[in-house]
């Protein structure tokens, strides 16, 4: 049998090894001076640690506890967000603005001149002179009225 692992010796000291395994470990310890020495150290340390006991607690005052809970504000506590949260929100806003700006630029780009091509959403209406709609609208503005 190989040497016993330290963690198993610790469990042996804690009396938490399974019975079958404990039997095997104890049998090994009989014949292995190296493991015996380790076992003595671990058991001794385990026993020494038992010297630190703490006093038992007083009984909990349930009525006081209930009162403490009633006094606790139930509203959501507002906390100042951390610098990382602020940086993320700022980055999100910047990206949104950029996307909006680029989208806006794209949507108002002029049609290629001289092609006579109509936008698809106009051509599906079946008009022959759909391309002139925008100029008609523009002509209906204040400047056009003044001219007229």
């Amino acid at each position, binding site marked *: 049998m190989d040497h016993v692992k330290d963690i198993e010796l610790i469990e042996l000291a804690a009396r938490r090894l399974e019975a079958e395994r404990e039997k095997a470990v104890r049998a090994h310890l009989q014949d292995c001076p190296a493991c015996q020495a380790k076992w003595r150290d671990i058991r001794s340390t385990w026993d020494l640690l038992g010297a630190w006991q703490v006093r038992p607690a007083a009984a909990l005052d349930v*009525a006081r*506890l209930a009162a403490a809970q009633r006094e606790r504000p139930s509203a959501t506590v507002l906390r100042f967000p951390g610098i990382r949260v602020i940086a993320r929100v700022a980055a999100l806003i910047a990206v949104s603005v950029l996307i909006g700006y680029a989208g806006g630029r794209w949507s108002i780009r002029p049609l290629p001149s001289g092609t006579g091509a109509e936008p698809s959403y106009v051509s599906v209406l079946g008009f022959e002179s759909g391309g002139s709609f925008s100029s008609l609208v523009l002509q209906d503005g204040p400047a056009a009225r003044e001219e007229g």
Partner: protein
Amino acid sequence: MANEPPSDIELMARLGRGDLAALGTLAERYQSRILSLSYRLLGDWHRAEDVSQETFLRLRQAAGSYEPQAKFTTWLYRIVHNLSLDQRRKTGKDPVSLEAVQADAVEVTQASPLERRELAQAVQNAVGELPERQRRVIILHRYEGLSHEEISKVTGWSKSAVESLLVRAYENLRKKLQPYQDFSP
């Protein structure tokens, strides 16, 4: 079977229905262990009592929606562990210092010879001087009797990490307590 004490899960269900007596029963059962654990983790009675009270407040808050997915005590220890961790974060990460050690925190169970009190103090100091993670696993293993799996669930560390920490912690304690090795507690 009418005289059988109610299970923890049953008490949580009662508490969820607003039965404060169930909280009292849970407190009788676990308050001493909660206070001992938080005291050992924090090294200060006042903060340990705060953690203890906060733990029961959390129990009461969670009772309505409590669904037993793990052992009740593991869940309870996880609350205490995390609250103690929060306490330590609030007040700094210094290990339990000699100044923080209170003489009245050491209970000497038998006739109190000076050596016994000195040993108890030495053990408390030795545990307090361990690196943070080693200190936590030692307290949960040696004093709370938790298995490696339970410690893993309470701390969130892997089982192999817990075992490695335990081996190193016991070895460090052996060295620190070397002068007392011949002392029989």
